[in-house]
């Protein structure tokens, strides 16, 4: 479980987050929605320690994450798939995965086999440079690289970016299955509100750094105002 409490972040004079509070329970997907520049990426970067907050705290279960280094937060089981995926293009698929496994315990071959089973296309391309993968394959590699260390929290920053609707739907389904199976805490940042709300249990809506809704995904989906003004879901 991730608990964000009264979090404020600013970049110099620009206030990116203002007193943001919410909880992301284990075994559930919490969607974080909002327009461009709402502060979604900033929120994830603050959780994983890449950005230091002005005030407020982030906790994972009983541990306070705020003030720790990114490298240590990752070791506490918080995996962050960044915006744009962050696949290392010069590395092969397998090297990317080995890097992801670096902080984990146990046998590397077993862990690799497990990921290749979940994402068969990665197994076929294991010796290929990641630069040669398609956008969807890169997204799978980024997911596999995050999952291979067996995290308990998964932060996903716009995984559907640049993917075809069909691929997005498959990806969302995969995220949902994972979450249920491993009892992960998933924080899913999305522009694409409708597909995120379809799989999420909870939803947080940000508007220029402020939480305007924090409710069940169903309630957010059915709220006509939210849909129209903040999520741009005019159907």
């Amino acid at each position: 479980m991730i608990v964000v409490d009264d979090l404020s972040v600013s970049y110099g004079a620009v206030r990116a987050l203002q007193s943001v509070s919410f909880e992301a329970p284990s075994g559930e997907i919490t969607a974080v929605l909002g327009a461009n520049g709402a502060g979604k990426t900033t929120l994830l970067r603050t959780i994983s320690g890449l950005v230091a907050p002005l005030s407020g705290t982030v906790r994972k279960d009983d541990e306070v994450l705020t003030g720790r280094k990114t490298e240590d937060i990752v070791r506490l089981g918080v995996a962050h798939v960044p915006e744009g995926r962050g696949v290392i293009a010069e590395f092969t698929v397998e090297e990317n995965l080995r890097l992801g496994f670096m902080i984990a315990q146990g046998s590397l071959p077993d862990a690799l086999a497990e990921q290749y089973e979940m994402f068969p296309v990665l197994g076929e391309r294991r010796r290929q440079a990641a630069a040669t993968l398609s956008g969807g394959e890169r997204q799978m590699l980024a997911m596999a690289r995050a999952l291979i260390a067996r995290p308990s929290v998964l932060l996903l920053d716009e995984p559907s970016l640049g993917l075809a609707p069909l691929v997005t739907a498959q990806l969302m389904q995969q995220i949902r299955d994972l979450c249920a199976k491993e009892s992960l805490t998933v924080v899913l940042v999305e522009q694409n509100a409708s597909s995120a709300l379809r799989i999420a249990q909870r939803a947080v809506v940000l508007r220029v750094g402020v939480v305007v809704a924090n409710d069940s995904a169903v309630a957010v989906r059915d709220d006509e105002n939210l849909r129209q003004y903040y999520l741009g879901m005019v159907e």
Partner: protein
Amino acid sequence: MDAFLTSRNVSDVLGGLASGVIYALVALSLVLIWRSTRMLNFAQGAMAVFATYIGFAILAPSTNYWVSMAVAIVAGLVLGGATERVLVRRLYGKPEINPIVAMVGLLLVLESVAAAIWSTSSRPLATPFSIVDWQLNHKPMALSPFAVYEIVTSLVVMAIVAALFQYTKLGLQLRAAALAPEVSRLLGVRVSRMLTIGWMLSTAVGAVTAVLVASNFFTGLTPSGMDGVFAFGFIAAAIGGLDSPVGAMVSGLALGVVFQFVGDYVNSNAIILVALGMLIVSLMVRPSGVFTRSAQRRV
């Protein structure tokens, strides 16, 4: 066969390889740092010489050559790490001339301090290998035990570095930290530690290079003895591509051979002019280096 092995051209190639491995090592140590910090370590030669003095001048002169070499390597590791922690760390994110200036300052300090402590006169090292060429049917072969030692040692160092980067967990992290620091942190790589280790490795490679250079009876160890070698090593690295370890090493070897031919057929003063010319031409034609793949950059 004998006539072939003692012919002028073959001996030029062999002699060229013996100096080429040195340029290749310097180029390699420059590339190690360039890839991770986008800095050209102008103090590389001076740091290497300083480590060598620690190995060979602080210990008693009778100390075993290999013990001194080991001490020099350890001194290189320490000096490289300390430089990164104390000096280089403050220069990340500054305009690109700041690190150049700082490293040149360090170069001047280290060379002056070495000269103040150990004087500028050349100090011969007790090399365990003769520099007298082997004879084949009473003709010299342009290959001495020392040259073989130089070539073998350099190749071993390159192989160790390559294996470290390619096959170990540490190497994977070092490469990742250089290519994508933020992503690496998100995967738990201690990037700032990797930068320190990179400088340590680079300076240790430099220390081996300086020991080899100074082990040559004719040059010996002097405070500024690496200035010229550094210049050639930089030229090799720039031609091969500062981003490409393999390219830097290959072009180091090639330059060694080319220079040997120039020195033999033209004259030895022309070598550096040819080197400068090659650098200028290659930078004009391929500014990022002959071996750097220009496509496929980070997304």
